[in-house]
């Protein structure tokens, strides 16, 4: 199975490549006041308005000092398109099925919800994200806020 990978800090993450529509450079983001913190805002993707989710905020990581190089990974989810804002993009990796392991229990509860499994690559670990869960996660946070 192939994964589109990207980095947040030194950690490597991946989403199934078939769910990724395209990868684009930082767009001008329009913030949405009152929206949950993980939503950075809206971008204009050739006339389509796409919500941008800041993956650093989803994964409880410190914000980047200079986020100008961030990349939008435009991903197809159940509700349409969502853009995952990441630090920089990695390769498309063909991960063999036998290298996968379930998510280690040491990960914090909320983060575990968006990571579906972990792949042992030579040299580092690839954490596989479930984009649909990111959006759902997002929604449950809103209902909690209300």
């Amino acid at each position, binding site marked *: 199975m192939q994964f589109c990978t990207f980095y947040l800090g030194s950690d490597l993450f991946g989403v199934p490549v078939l769910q990724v529509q395209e990868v684009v450079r930082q767009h*001008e983001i*329009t*913030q*949405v*006041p*009152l*929206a*949950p913190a993980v*939503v950075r*805002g*809206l*971008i*204009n993707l*050739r*006339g*389509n*308005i796409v*919500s941008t989710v800041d993956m650093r905020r989803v994964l409880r990581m410190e914000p980047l000092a200079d986020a100008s190089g961030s990349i939008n990974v435009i991903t197809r989810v159940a*509700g*349409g398109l*969502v853009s995952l804002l990441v630090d920089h993009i990695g390769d498309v990796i063909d991960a063999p099925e036998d290298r996968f392991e379930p998510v280690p229990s040491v990960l914090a509860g909320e983060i575990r919800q968006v990571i579906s499994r972990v792949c042992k690559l030579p040299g580092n670990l690839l954490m596989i994200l479930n984009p649909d869960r990111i*959006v759902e996660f*997002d*929604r449950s946070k*809103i209902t909690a806020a*209300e």
Partner: protein
Amino acid sequence: MNEDLQQQLVKELVVESLEGLDTFDQEILAFEHGDETPDTWNNAFRIIHTIKGSSGCIGFPKVESVAHVGESLLSVLRDGHRPADSNIASSLLQYSDALREMMRSIEQTGNEGAADHADLVQNLQALQAGISGAAAPEKPTFGFFGDENTEANQPVTPPASAPQPGAVVKEAPKPSAADSAIRVDVGQIDRLMNLVGELVLARNQIVQATGHLGDPGLLTAVQRVNLITSELQESVMKTRMQPIGNVWSKFPRIIRDLCHELGKDVALVLEGNETELDRTIIEAIKDPMTHLIRNAIDHGIETPDARIAAGKPAQGRLVLRAFHEGGQVNIEISDDGKGIDAARVVEKALQRGLVSPEQAGRMSHREQLDLVFLPGLSTADIVTNVSGRGVGMDVVRTNIEKIGGNVNLDSEPGHGAVIRIKIPLTLAIIPALVVNCGDDRFAIPAASLVELVRIEGDQVARSLEHIHEAPVYRLRGDLLPLVDLAKELGITARRHVEDTLFLVVLQAEGRQFGLVVDNIQDTEEIVVKPLAREMKGLGVYAGATIMGDGKVALILDVVGLARRAALLEESSRHASRESAKQTCAAEGAEESRSLLLARVGRNRIAIPLSCIARLEEIPLSRIENAGHSEVIQYRGRIMSVVRLSAVLGIEGESFGSGAPDCERLMPLVVCALEKDNFGVIVDSIEDIVEEQIRIEAREGQRGILGSAIVRQKVTDLLDVRELARIAV
């Protein structure tokens, strides 16, 4: 059969059948009312025959067999003239409901559903037996092939017993109509509309970017692109238009059923069936309109006995009228029922504590009726004891306002009620005002925009007051609640309160409020794009749009914003704002007022701005005489005018020895007091000020309340009421 093809066929079957059944209903209703044409039965028969044939082919035996029973009945009916018979009509309507139900089931689950409709089948067979026993010779109807023959032998010609030449002519153009029209998937049109929306945005960008370049060739090309885009936008918009008759076609059936249920007799008159609306709007008004119609029949129109007792014809009239006016679609729903008694509405509102007695006392008839739209006051409570049907009038109003429309009500007790709805033609591209707040731009739909106010300098501190922490602004003497956009959205405003304050006066659910923003830009045509569900749930954004520079801007949901600021719960402010209008010519205590300053001769005159409807310029030659007074023709009506210099006995430019020049344009202040308008001619208009003034009364001067010092000059304050008496 190929899976995709099968699905495609099923989809087509469902769409065509549902459409056909709607027409079928109309034909049956025509029969019931006795205004059937020779085509009535032919059409009904053909529709059912098609449904039967196609569902048999695709493999829905139950639909086929149920359809067959009705088809046999119809084939008997079309061969003999029958008087209007509501028993047959009822059965056939039930029959169409049953088929509809099966079609819906096929659409949703892929099978025909569990109901076997045995009672219905028996009923139809009994009817058929009764008719064929009495009249028409028995016709062999041996199922599918037998009927196919019947159809083939006499395709669309009217029955032999009624040879009407007109019928044949009427049939002839039908095939050509079918040839020149194609069925297009709505999704396809929506995509086209989106692309055109993109084109409009790109056009805006090009126009902006090339505006300062001097190249004439490029400018001409840009101009052409501009024009073509506008035209394309219009044409594509037209393809999405549907006649409002599409919604209305459901109403005769609803009304018939309701009348049967309630024992009433109502004739429905439809005017302006062909008035076209965007299909999204058609969808949006379907439910509110159904509700209003149910209301009119349930609560408005009386039973035949009561109507006769009241000296009205036994049959009630419900008129639906639609027409285009001023870029909007107007819909009127009027009935000749017992109307709505404003006094009882007020009584109910008082009981519920929705208004205070003194507010109620100050309200006009229209405002009293408007109370019906308040949440918590249902028409069922007021008019009859029959229970309401779920949604109240407040929901109707909310739904209509959601699509940028408005609704109002007028009624004369004993003679009926009229509900007027105004809605925009389309929702996809709307005019909007662009404002800045913090680092962002927001678009406000122009439909809810009332006016813009800019307060400058030291006025800012003086004009803002607080009632229990809630900021208010005195707009021409009326209190306007203020909502700070930055505060509501939790963003940092980029403004210096001391300098300038921008207010956008908005209307939501009948109330006005002022939205404080950092800056006001321009109005633009924007393309509304939907927001992801998570953003929509916030309730303050109606959508998003892409601006000329390619950036995204959020569209504010005015109603949602007002709700969020908890403005709509308080009806009191609205009432106080309205009532303040009544007191515009009151005695002068020291208070801040907006005044129009005008000059007449050497005097400076102040007129309260709240009494002024418009400012115009007219040549004195337009003044004509009616009786003893001077009048002009104004907006198609006769309006009295007074020359202020004549009333005050001052030498001015319009009167006196300074021999007025008849063709010179003179400023005309159109004053509105209660219902009457009248014009006041002054020499010139100087300024509009908002000042705290102290009026010193001066006795014996006709038309003047007193004098005050305004901006360092002695100014006479006009007594508008007295002037109205002089004028009218």
